[in-house]
């Protein structure tokens, strides 16, 4: 259960709206059920009181919306940012993707977001409502008379299981208490794949990436993918395609996408969250992050504004491309 309440957020938004600090509010709107929450722009108190929601399903990272939304907004826009969202926020600022002056960022603590698919796997279909109490989620379904209780932690989204930081790295105002950067085990899975033989690695990724339907959800949700025109939509780029015709194109899309965000990816996990085919896309991005950390020193994209991303930087004694394998493990 989230420590900060929906009412606290609404009150904050209403006060900022009424004192003229902000013109509108970027927040979460309730859906049909308790889990299908949509990002929305709220313009007044009525809209907020009626439709604003804050619960364990508010996973969407708003940072990316700021690129397009601030262009349309004349005054300031209030945005609520969870700790992991603030990294994307900073990274976008580093890349001059929106005007900081047009945003009023309110940092809000996050206790971890739930993955509805994990809940469905645990409780079955037919979920009518979900309510949180303490560290439990009580799930009411069509097919069981009693609510099914699951621990929130057991149904955390992948990125929340491996949460890297409860600390906000950017905000104008903070609600609740700030946390710390966390020593996570987020690279363990990458290390497991690295430890496989090349044949196993190939088979692993072949299986994962073959499910890709090129819906582009990973790209479109990614806060690092804010290109005015994506190379995959650009007929002149030479790699444009609407659907992968074969396994090469499946791989190419994901390699190039991961490479494009390498050094800029904050590991917010949106790609894996939105993938309708459950491809563990974060494992591609994390591979780059892990490599960057080990080759060039620890680097967390978005930790600060204005840092030089590792791929637009160098030192004269960087390791040679041929040496990466010596470091990466012995599975030739």
């Amino acid at each position, binding site marked *: 259960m989230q420590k900060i309440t929906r009412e606290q957020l609404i009150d904050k938004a209403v006060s900022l709206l009424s004192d003229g600090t902000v013109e509108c509010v970027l927040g979460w709107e309730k859906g049909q059920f308790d889990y299908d929450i949509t990002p929305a722009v709220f313009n007044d108190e009525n809209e907020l009181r009626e439709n604003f929601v804050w619960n364990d399903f508010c996973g969407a990272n708003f940072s990316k919306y700021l690129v397009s939304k601030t*262009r*349309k907004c004349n005054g300031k826009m209030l945005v609520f940012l969870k700790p992991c969202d603030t990294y994307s926020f900073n990274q976008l600022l580093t890349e*001059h*993707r929106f005007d900081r002056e047009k945003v009023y960022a309110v940092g809000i603590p996050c206790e971890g977001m739930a993955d509805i698919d994990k809940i469905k796997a645990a409780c079955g279909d037919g979920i009518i409502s979900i309510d949180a109490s303490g560290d439990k989620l009580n799930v009411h379904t069509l097919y069981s008379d009693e609510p099914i209780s699951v621990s929130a932690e057991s149904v955390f989204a992948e990125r929340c299981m491996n949460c890297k930081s409860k600390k906000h790295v950017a905000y104008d105002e903070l609600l609740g208490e700030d946390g710390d950067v966390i020593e996570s085990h987020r690279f363990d899975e990458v290390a497991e794949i690295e430890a496989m033989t090349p044949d196993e690695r190939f088979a692993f990724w072949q299986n994962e990436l073959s499910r890709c339907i090129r819906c582009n959800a990973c790209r479109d949700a990614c806060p690092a993918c804010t290109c*005015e*025109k994506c190379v995959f939509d*650009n007929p002149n780029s*030479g790699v444009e395609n609407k659907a992968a015709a074969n396994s090469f194109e499946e791989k190419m899309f994901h390699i190039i996408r991961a490479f494009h965000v390498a050094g800029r990816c904050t590991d917010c996990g949106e790609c894996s969250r939105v993938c309708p085919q459950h491809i563990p896309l974060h494992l591609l991005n994390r591979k780059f992050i892990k490599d960057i950390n080990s080759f060039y020193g620890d680097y967390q994209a978005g930790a600060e504004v204005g840092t030089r*991303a590792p791929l*637009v930087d160098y030192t004269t004694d960087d390791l040679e491309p041929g040496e990466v394998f010596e470091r990466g493990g012995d599975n030739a």
Partner: protein
Amino acid sequence: MQRIGVFVCWCGSNIAGTVDVQAVSDALKNEPGVVFSTNYQYMCSQAGQDIIKQAIAEHKLTGIVVCSCSPRMHEATFRKTAAAAGLNPYMVEIANIREQCSWVHKDMPIGTEKAIILGKAAVAKVNLNTPLTPGETPVTKRALVIGGGIAGIQTALDIADAGFPVDIVEKKPTIGGKMAQLDKTFPTLDCAACILTPKMVDVAQNDKIRIFSYSEVTDVKGFVGNFDVTIKKHARYVKEDVCTGCGLCTEKCPQKKVPNEFNLGMDNRRAIYIPFAQAVPKVATIDPNYCTMLKTGKCGVCSKVCTAGAIDYKQKDEFIEEKYGAIVVATGYNPISMDKFDEFAYSQSKDVITSLEFERLTNAAGPTAGKLLRPSDGKHPHTIVFVQCVGSRCDSCAQKGKEYCSKICCMYTAKHAMLTRDKYPDTDVYVFYIDVRTPGKNFDEFYRRAVEEYDVHYVKGMVGKVTPEGDKLKVQASDLLTNKQMHIDADLVVLAAAIEPDKSARPLATMLTASMDTNDFFTEAHPKLRPVESPTAGVFLSGTCQGPKDIPETVSQAGAAASKVIGLLAKDKLTGNPCVAHSDEWMCNGCSSCERVCPYGAITYEDKEFRMPDRTTAIRRIAVVNPAVCQGCGACTVACPSGAMDLRGFASSQIMAEVDAICK
């Protein structure tokens, strides 16, 4: 669709010997876009070029592929040919079927097959070529010469002579460089000072030339025709324009124990000093490392004795910013350190000296007033051993010394030996050598005189060890011709130390973005055809910064560099390289990735209002490339996540078309 002409060159038998040129031109005839294809013995010849010109006119060609030697060889030639026939020169692509094909593959079918593929790749590229027009930039009509040795002096004089202003930046308090330290010069044996100092005076008196002595270049921005240079003038604590150079201060200064670098530390100077009598500018300089006044605030003798009132203890380093159209590097050389050559006992005995030290010992203005006396005891040496190639022509595995030949040692050693024998016929002179290299006008004659007329003992072989024993130096050597060990009790051993580029060259090269070889000599734009130009446009090379040279060579290269500079400065406008980066403003995210990888600072950003595809208006930050500054490396094109940045002449689509053609 292009109308492409393909021209396959035989290069005599160079290509035709291993590539079936007829088959190549036949095969390429069928490639998309190709409307004409032929082959000829020498495409680069006038007749060959005429074939191209004629085909352009006859077949209304819009693009050309020449299958020939490396584009590094004749791309420029064929571009000119195309231009002469009215075709944009950037519509020409070369398929390198000589260096990369006929010369490395011996089998005719294999060579032919590869030549066809390389030709197809070039055709694929030309299909996507677009006519390019170079941009124009104005030229600042002023040159900068970095280094005030004989190379810099000559370059500056020649440029000034053509009427262009020149600045010389010299890090020492005076110009003159190494030549000012020399005694006589080979092979004519005229006195170095006698021929150099008049030139120094010419420099001082030339109103087109400014000298920034005791100064160094700290920053270079800009590009050919438009360099912005920052020069740091070190505080010399003497007002240059007030000092008369009378030298009184240098006599009265109580700090007498300063090693005199002009005499290579073989005697002392004062804390305030003028390096030598003919220094230009003839102005005193206070050495802040030794001056009591500057260190403790107590003394002030020089200030008291200076009637002109030129002393200024509060002087600060000064930074001067100036614009230049061309920069000449003349940073010169130094003998290498003898630290790694302990077998010659250089650090153990004062009587083991380098050749440059020997020059000072024999120089009338030197520490011994020209008398050849041993540094240790001031006695006249009777047996002198000269060791050549100390640190030159070393095995790369030995981890010491240089692989290259220092070039000047053979001649100056012969000079030293001859002069010694001439002045002091009672001395025995031995020269140990690996080879004696005397290619040069009157060089061999000079060497033979040393051997034949002056009875210098030339011994082919290397000195193994020098051991100081009493007041003698035991020299252990081998004579390779007689295959015998030799033991000589010498009074003086002179080491012909290898020469290396000055240490200031490497950081300067970085500032200039000029390339260097692994020995830190500046690389020339072409080793044979452009020996005085650096690959970086607008940067020229003069003297030993480019490689070991003697004085006549240095002076001729200095003149050559000057003529290149004059050629550049004589232009009012420069046409640039059109193969530069450009950003598609619709795709640009303004993320700054490109700016961060650009080594030239060619990319800036501006906010621009856009009518967006969704009919809204937005102010977007977009990258703008300065085509005059961009050198066309392409780093930005890969850093750009959206692919907004592309490179003219090497567009992503062109490179991918080449990949496709090669792989099909």
